[in-house]
């Protein structure tokens, strides 16, 4: 089956412009969809944060311990992201494993 290139199309003149516009429209729609996804993720994060903050309101003794628990997974993600950039995926996995092993040992106190 012959590959269809824009330039190949015998009706290239007018469809070329439409295609660019269409492509723009498609990109825009895609961007808007991704944007909505990001927005709804931020909404969810904010709602979760509000709910936990509301529940913790009367009984927070050491704030940082609660904050720690909530954001630990996020910090882990960040650490992994950075490590991946620095040393690559395989070595990162090894670092993560050894960190988890260390933590399991020290949490046994």
């Amino acid at each position, binding site marked *: 089956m012959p590959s269809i290139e824009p330039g190949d199309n015998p009706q290239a003149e007018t469809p070329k412009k439409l295609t660019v516009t269409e492509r723009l429209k498609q990109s825009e729609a895609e961007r808007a969809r991704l944007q909505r996804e990001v927005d709804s993720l931020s909404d969810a994060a904010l709602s979760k944060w509000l709910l936990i903050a509301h529940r913790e309101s009367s009984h927070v003794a050491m704030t940082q311990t609660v904050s720690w628990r909530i954001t630990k997974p996020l*910090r882990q993600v960040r650490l992994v992201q950075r490590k991946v950039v620095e040393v690559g995926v395989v070595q990162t996995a090894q670092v993560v494993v050894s960190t988890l092993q260390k933590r399991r040992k020290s949490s046994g106190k």
Partner: protein
Amino acid sequence: MSKQTKRQRLAILLETLEPGANVDVPTAQLVAMVGKYLANPADDVVWLTLAVLGAELPVRDDVVALRRRFWLEAPVAVLDAVASAGIRSSIPLRASNRVSRVVSDTVVVDVHHTARTGLATGIQRVVRKTIAEWTKSHEILLVGWNSSLTSLRELSAKEAENALYGTAPHAGSDAVADEILIPWKCDYILPELAVEDSRTSRIAAMAEFSGNRSMLIGFDCVPLTSAETIGAGMGAGFARNLVAAAHFSKIATISEAAASEYSGWRMMLGSAGLTGPQIKSVFLPSDAGSVTDAQLAAARKTLATGDLPLVLCVGSHEPRKNHLAVLTAAEVLWKQGRQFSLAFVGGNAWGAEEFQHRLAVLEEEGRPVKTVHAITDALLWGGYRVARCTVFPSINEGFGLPVAESLAVGTPVVTSGYGSMAEIAVQGGGILVDPRDDEALASGMASALFDDDVNARLRREAAGRSVRTWSDYADDVWDYFFTEA
């Protein structure tokens, strides 16, 4: 109080008011002879009367009340009543038969706290070094207070040793002589901080009424000017220390910055009709310490990480020292990919929850940061030498020994661009930043750490600084107190 004690005290009072008087007379005659001095008595005589007859230093209300009694009633009758009952006749007679000794024409140095503490922080170091120098060339009398903080007494040998050298930290628990001291026509120096109300109220009355000339060393007014950085409870004690200081003749502050804090306070005294003391800055000296090669290597091992250049931060973890800014600035640089290690030395932590939290986060992320709490001299002086630079972005200092020490050793310092820290850095060797600006701090640290030209220049500047010793300092304070007008 026994009749004998009453008589003894009257005799001492008479001898002080009239040196050479014949005290070998009946008690009633003693009363009459002393009474001559109490018709329209001056304040210092009223104060002395109370101190000797009550065998404790009076507070202001005591002096004012007695002064008024002398106006309203016959002096001899009042004298007799006080001699029999002590200072507060509404309180049951004191069982004590303490002996008091009046000391005259003496330089009395009050080191009550320094004599009984094992602490070796800023203030204690200044006091110890200073009085150790003074004892070499001047006659001074080291004193402390009794356990209820109502009268002065001479220090025991162990207490004096601890005051001078810090080598007997439990001296305060030794039994001490019962004899109390009453200064008369003396110079009274308070080189340490006194905050107990019982003590400050008596020092205040002594300064206001007794005629003794009083001087103090002023460290800072942080409990007044940065109260939010210290714990509750310090403000009132410090303010009452200042109430006493309002009647002193001279304050030698440890920096111009401290002088401006005390001067600001003195400007407030006019509302209370007081003039306040003369205030002058006598700059602290800078120690460089010394270490053996072995100690140097040990310091490197403890503080540095691998071969990374070391940033050293000396001082306690309290809000004013601003260690969170150091962590933030370091993190900014690490995120940029900069390679260096950070070590905190000096330990006491107060109000440092967020600092500990952020430190733990950084450690978990594998950042090369260490903290050492138990600090020895070897570690401190070794650390200064091992470091590529030190950092000290304090918000408010009376002096800032770590800045001076770093520069004395020859190690560049990144520190606050105002106040006493800027004063210390004026001869060079420092990078000055706004400590309230994390990025400026990061930039200053980067410059000292990674710009070889800058680092070399700073080291040259530091090496060229003039040396000031504890002997210089002690002499300058003495001259200010005794020689200058």
